[in-house]
């Protein structure tokens, strides 16, 4: 009896705690959404009236649209490159045995651990030499470096739980090693690969510091937002944020649907 009461008390506390966490996580949205529809000329909360003006100002400003297109190009390029390279690294780490493997294993997370700004400065130095500063694919390369560790971690985890006998079976039944990986291994770790690709996309789409240093005049969306805040604080940035959140939301939904929905066993 006492025990049960104590337990239900604990449950109430837990619920309150979780409520708080949830509130702090979503609270910014409750501010950003209303402000994006604000009728005022400056950032104020609560907004005095409803208006589409900041969305129009976003759509009608070629600089914003250009930044959006650049960001999407960079993020998609990063997704493809980082997923491809990261998956290969994950395979070599989980399956391979070669001298220095344990060092690769330790160093692979380095881009996450080293402060972003150090990477950004270093990239700037290298890119300046090859005249990559200001090119969207330069930013893409920088973001790929930053996104690869996420892919390696996620795909590596997927590979570790994969039953290697499956690959042996495939080879015993007549598949070459490559065919075995293609027909048997990859389809089964597909959810991990899709999650990794999604992470790579978000990582790039949200990234500011590397873009700040390497994108030059060809700004990405976060860089454009940053400049906007510094030079002319107006609610356009709220409208852009809402659009960005919606885009990411769509990507998440698609990833979940595509990654899991088609697989009858999960």
């Amino acid at each position, binding site marked *: 009896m006492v025990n049960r009461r104590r337990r239900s008390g604990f449950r109430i506390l837990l619920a309150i705690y979780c409520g708080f966490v949830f509130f702090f996580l979503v609270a910014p949205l409750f501010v950003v959404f209303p402000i994006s529809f604000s009728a005022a000329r400056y950032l104020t909360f609560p907004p005095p009236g409803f208006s589409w003006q900041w969305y129009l100002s976003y759509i009608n400003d070629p600089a914003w649209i250009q930044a959006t297109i650049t960001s999407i190009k960079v993020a998609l390029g990063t997704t493809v490159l980082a997923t491809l390279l990261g998956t290969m690294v994950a395979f070599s780490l989980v399956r391979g045995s070669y001298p220095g493997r344990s060092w690769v294993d330790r160093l692979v997370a380095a881009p996450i651990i080293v402060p972003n700004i150090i990477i950004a400065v270093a990239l700037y130095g290298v890119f300046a030499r090859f005249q990559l500063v200001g090119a969207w694919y330069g930013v893409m390369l920088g973001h790929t470096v930053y996104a690869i560790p996420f892919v390696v971690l996620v795909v590596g985890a997927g590979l570790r739980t994969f039953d290697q006998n499956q690959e042996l079976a495939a*080879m015993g039944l*007549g598949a070459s090693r490559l065919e075995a990986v293609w027909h048997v291994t990859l389809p089964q770790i597909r959810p991990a690969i899709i999650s990794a690709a999604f992470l790579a996309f978000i990582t790039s789409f949200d990234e500011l510091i590397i873009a700040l240093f390497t994108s030059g005049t060809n700004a990405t969306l976060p860089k454009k937002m940053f400049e906007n805040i510094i030079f002319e604080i107006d609610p356009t940035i709220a409208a852009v944020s809402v659009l960005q959140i919606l885009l990411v939301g769509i990507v998440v939904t698609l990833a979940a649907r595509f990654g899991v929905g088609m697989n009858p066993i999960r």
Partner: protein
Amino acid sequence: MSDLSLKGIAKHFGDVVALEHVDLELARGEFTTILGPSGSGKTTMLRIVAGFEHQDAGQVLVRGKDVTQLAPAKRNMGMVFQNYALFPHMTVAENVAFPLRMRRTGRAEIRERVGWSLDTVALGGYEERYPSQLSGGQQQRVALARAIVFDPELLLLDEPFGALDRKLREQMQLEVKRLQRRLNLTTLFVTHDQEEALILSDSIAVMNAGRIEQLGTPRAVYAEPASRFVADFIGESNLFQGRVRAITNGLLVIETEAGHTLHARARDGLVEGHSVSALVRPERPQPTDGGLSGINDFEGEIIEAVYMGESEKYRVALDGGLEFLVRWPGQGEARTRSEGGRLAFSISPDDLHVIAVDGSKK
């Protein structure tokens, strides 16, 4: 020509010797079991035959062709794995079609072969199911269908019955045996389960510590084991250490270390003074009325009686301290033998198998 011959296969992992010069021959359609405890090298042997592991020395020949340098995919062997290793993201039909697709077989032929293969294992109609929607027995049939669909030169079975419950296991064993007979498949089967080996095999290779201790028919390895290890590993046994004291009238007179005298049929190569192990299977002794007049007559007290339905098992303490295991057909209530009672039995000299002990100088 043998379908499979292993010649002098040796393999070690670091300092550990996994296989030590193993020779084995399988004739067309023969079902051979590699039987041994874990760590005996039996799995290593199968992996070498399949090509997943490379031997340090020796050759693997399939129908006279040396496949030592061939990748697993080029060896044309159908393998059923311990946990079947069905591909969970493919349907039953896709699983079975996999080896054919890898061989670039035409679409029409694939359909026909897959149909034949699934019919063979009585799984017609399950084409569109996924492995997770099947029972354990059905999954195993799929694995079997997948292993035979491309007409392999050799069927390899790696403890395929371990995951099934007893009743299903016995049913599947007989089904596999029938299938193997019907298709005349040369089969190499690996297991640690001696009962399974006895049921299925044409011949059994008993492995211990990287060597084949004995190769023979199920009857031979059970009734006439070549070593103490084989006698002990297969079935239940009464094993006694002793020495040949004399040979009279074609009978070996063996004195056990506990002081009993046993008579066994004489065998070539055994002479007076040899150290031997004497084996009696528990079902061999015949009940007697008591009295110790004849040869190999014994009597003792039942110290443990276990009723098992079709049989009853008694542990008997013979006068003189020796323990003896006896197993006779199960009896009705009226003929219960219980603990504390007396039991008298006699062993025919033909039912006593004598194993020479290596280096018999003791």
